[in-house]
């Protein structure tokens, strides 16, 4: 049995990693949604036409903050893995991120999270825990 302080530290790390992932994914989703279909931003056909969409994405501040959150999430996960076992950290952060994303998408992105999507959230979380057994 782990000491309460170790348990608290482990779970605060896991929560922090999940929170950064949720913030990053929602900000990136919000930025991408504001562009609409990226194909319409293409200026030319062929590989050079991708310059338009790439410039639009990289000059969006919302996208850049989201990408920063994802980068911090990566290093926070590396730190977490040094104090928490992989078999707990990986499924716990994956499920928490998944549930948090669904709630954040409903609250902030105003997405229509219907019963089908809530059911999927439950199934994926249960599935991730079974996979980690």
């Amino acid at each position: 049995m782990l000491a309460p302080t170790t348990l608290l530290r482990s779970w605060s790390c896991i929560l922090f990693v999940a929170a950064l992932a949720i913030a990053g994914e929602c900000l990136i989703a919000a930025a991408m949604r504001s562009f609409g279909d990226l194909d319409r931003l293409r200026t030319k056909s062929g590989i050079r036409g991708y310059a338009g969409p790439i410039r639009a994405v990289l000059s969006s501040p919302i996208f850049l903050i989201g990408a920063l959150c994802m980068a911090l999430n990566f290093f926070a996960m590396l730190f977490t893995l040094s104090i928490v076992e992989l078999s707990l950290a990986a499924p716990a952060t994956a499920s928490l991120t998944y549930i948090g994303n669904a709630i954040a998408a409903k609250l902030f992105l105003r997405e229509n999270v219907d019963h089908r999507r809530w059911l999927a959230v439950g199934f994926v979380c249960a599935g991730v825990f079974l996979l980690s057994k």
Partner: protein
Amino acid sequence: MKHTLTPQRYLILLAVSLSASVGDTLLKRGMGQVGTVDMQHLGLLWHALFNPYVIAGIVLLIGFFASYMTALSWADLTFVMPATALGYVVIALLSHFWLHEHLSLYRCAGILLIVCAVGFVANGPSRTEHPSHADLDLMDSGVGR
């Protein structure tokens, strides 16, 4: 407005679910060849950039990020999420058939649950439509009734 995904968009969703998991598996294999990296051997990280498995893994992960962002430009975050979750299934299958890890009954049940979840969401609409003010005015005026 009804949203049906074109075959090209299904291909992008397929790329989202495959590239991350295959990329991670390649990185894992490459780093296994490079050896353990710690504070005394940070130079190994530079060395790792020349390992073909690590290069292939990085290319696939860049491809994942590009296809993920493309998908988010025309679909909801909660619609794309199950596609990324399908990656866990691909990792489990890859580690069974390629790395010959044991696939327990629990894991088979987990794979089944995630596949069901993807099925639920894929059957629904891919994008939430928020009617604009012009649309609402049009509805109020009774046109199209």
